[in-house]
């Protein structure tokens, strides 16, 4: 049967198993909206700003492992989506973004609402396409999903001119596509894996460092199995939290700029580093010359370009984490050798000394609400079982430090791009994917205002998100850097003229609560959680001057951490 391009597009989404499309209409996509309107299989979520659509699709993807789908119009629709596309690109999130385009015959003529979407998005997508002929439409959509979800995941943009959505063609959705230039490597090289296992077994002071790749590979359980078999300490990047249970005794928590003292010290002193699905980001590595000075390094990553990019490694393994780790487990089981238990015991003694420093300690007797206390209480009240999205700033770091994630896909934040405005729309995607789950959005009074309009979307779709606004009246992360590195000149980091968040929430049809005393923190959170079908905006008025510790200043090594001033190490 012949269908219009718009109908074909919607059928493709259905055949791809797409549940939700996050989008915003406009001239170039009206045929597509018309086709969406006439069916019930693919549900459309109308956001209030295209940035919101991209973050919502992103949150959906991060919490389910499935690709997020976005539909926006040409011109301003596409440009508004860029921030979200770049956010997904930096964190390797599978997304398919369909952008409307002007008619093929008008392309290049500075037509109304024309931008070169393929050109503008090129540096921040895994790949992109312009569909010039309706005959290519279905195959292109198939390719887009295939590229977005395989290998190192990432966003793929498909730019569809209006006339292509209007023309008619036979529809058939390809079962499979092959792209002759694209063959992600799944299985690791057996010789390299063997070498890695030898090195791992020879370690006296081993350390496992894992990242977002474990989550995308769905390799949490195999990683956990291997780590327990070996009895080695493990640390996760900001993107990898939850891949190994944070409450397990082998977990040293997060590493890097705001990681724990024990994780960073163990990195600095280890003799074998086993890096798995992590990309040696500069917030993790610090100064390259000081990075793991004594370690031989194994690195497992599906993207060859991640390997030896900033830090030269000794045993590179290109492959999918789950495949490689399972193979490592097999070899370890076959091997007669065991880890060096005596050396390991000594290593753990050392690590436990570092742990005893209790680097995340904060003042529990303050008369002001400490942000850390709010997050600790959130953890207790939700029994560690919530999905937590976050914006960007101090609150993000505290959430990462104080909410102990035991499961993957629960911690949803923008790490690579650090996009303020991410938290609330991302929570919408998470909540839609998990309607019965508790979804908390940890944010700050500056970040939340970047996509505050999405409160309206939450109202329209009845999304009972719990917004935890850690309101310090400052762009706290900026203020912290100004305090440390600019002699306390707080240029433009004070948040003037804040709205009354309670009233604001109420005007959108939600519940707002303002919390000003430590004693009210827990009752407010419990109360909010009871309101199962309402969005509750909790405005916590927190200590303005609190800083995130520990901290490694830029350009320093892992052994040069700052703890909070009262407890600065010599």
């Amino acid at each position: 049967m012949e269908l219009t391009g718009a109908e074909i597009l919607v059928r493709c989404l259905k055949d791809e198993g797409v549940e939700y499309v996050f989008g915003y209409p406009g001239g170039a996509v009206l045929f597509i909206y018309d086709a969406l309107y006439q069916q019930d299989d693919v549900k459309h979520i109308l956001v209030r700003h295209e940035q919101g659509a991209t973050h919502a699709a992103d949150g959906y993807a991060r919490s389910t492992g499935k690709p997020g789908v976005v539909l926006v119009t040409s011109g301003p629709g596409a440009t508004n989506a860029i921030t979200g596309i770049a956010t997904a690109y930096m964190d390797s999130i599978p997304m398919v973004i369909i952008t409307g385009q002007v008619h093929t015959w008008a392309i290049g003529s500075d037509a109304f609402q024309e931008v070169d979407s393929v050109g503008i998005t090129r540096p921040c997508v895994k790949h992109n396409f312009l569909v010039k002929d309706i005959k290519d439409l279905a195959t292109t959509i198939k390719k887009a999903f295939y590229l977005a979800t395989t290998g190192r995941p990432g966003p793929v943009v498909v730019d569809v001119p209006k006339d292509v959505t209007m023309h008619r063609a036979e529809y058939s959705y390809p079962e499979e596509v092959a792209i002759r230039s694209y063959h992600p490597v799944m299985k690791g090289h057996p010789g390299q894996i063997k070498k890695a296992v030898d090195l791992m077994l020879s370690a006296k002071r081993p350390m496992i460092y894992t990242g977002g790749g474990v989550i995308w590979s769905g390799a949490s359980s195999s990683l956990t199995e291997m780590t327990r078999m070996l009895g080695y300490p493990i640390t996760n990047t900001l993107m990898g939290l939850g891949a190994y249970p944070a409450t397990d005794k082998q977990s040293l928590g997060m590493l890097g700029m705001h990681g724990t003292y024990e994780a960073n010290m163990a990195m600095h002193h280890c003799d074998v580093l086993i890096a798995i699905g992590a990309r040696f980001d500069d917030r993790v590595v610090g100064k390259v010359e000081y990075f793991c000075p004594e370690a031989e390094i194994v690195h497992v990553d599906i993207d060859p370009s991640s390997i030896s990019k900033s830090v030269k490694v000794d045993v590179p393994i290109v492959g999918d984490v789950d495949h490689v780790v399972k193979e490592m487990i097999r070899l370890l089981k076959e091997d007669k050798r065991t880890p060096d238990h005596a050396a390991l015991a000594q290593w753990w003694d050392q690590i436990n000394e570092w742990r005893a420093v209790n680097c995340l300690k904060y003042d529990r007797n303050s008369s002001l609400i400490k942000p850390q206390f709010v997050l600790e209480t959130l953890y207790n009240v939700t029994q560690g079982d919530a999905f937590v999205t976050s914006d960007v700033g101090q609150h993000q770091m505290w959430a990462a430090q104080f909410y102990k994630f035991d499961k993957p896909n629960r911690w949803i934040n923008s790490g690579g791009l650090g996009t303020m405005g991410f938290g609330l729309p991302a929570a919408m995607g998470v909540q839609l994917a998990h309607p019965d789950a508790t979804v908390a959005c940890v944010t700050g009074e500056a970040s939340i205002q970047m996509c505050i309009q999405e409160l309206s979307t939450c109202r329209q779709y009845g999304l009972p998100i719990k917004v935890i606004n850690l309101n310090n009246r400052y762009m706290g992360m900026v203020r912290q850097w100004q305090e440390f590195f600019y002699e306390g000149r707080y240029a433009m980091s004070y948040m003037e003229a804040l709205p009354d968040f309670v009233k604001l929430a109420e005007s959108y049809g939600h519940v707002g609560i303002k919390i000003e005393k430590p004693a009210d923190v827990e009752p407010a959170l419990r109360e909010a959680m009871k309101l199962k079908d309402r969005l509750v905006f909790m405005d916590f008025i927190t200590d303005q001057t609190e800083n995130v510790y520990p901290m490694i200043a830029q350009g320093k090594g892992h052994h040069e951490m700052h703890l909070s001033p009262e407890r600065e190490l010599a």
Partner: protein
Amino acid sequence: MRHIISILIENESGALSRVAGLFSARGYNIESLTVAPTEDPSLSRMTLVTRGSDEIVEQITKQLNKLVDVVKLIDLTEGPHIEREMMLIKLRTAGDAREELKRLVDIFRGHIIDVTTGTYTVELTGTGDKLDAFIQAVGSAAILETVRSGVSGIARGEKSLHL
């Protein structure tokens, strides 16, 4: 170190800008870049000359390979290879210089492919060094215009870059 990277790439409109964009976005340097379709019209062959430390060139090849449009890639400088560049150069040929220039063209095994009373247009093929040497030899006063193709290269022997 100077590297000559040869690429088979999908012959599609955006492909060239993906490569060029990669180099500018990541701050890699491009000394020259040539591209034209191959005997298989769906593929273009691109030759890229770049400079960088081993680490940078390793990243460059990895990043290029990562582009979905890149089908195959080799670094020609890793093995024996032949490189050629073509130059068209228009020379001023006033008075006595005319004979002298003709001799120089012969020495460099170039061809004069167009002539007017006051000019020669010369076609010259060789390595970049040879073209540079010719430019040196004729001297800048004589040069009206030069156009160079950029380097193309191919591996020596049986080795070949094809699908």
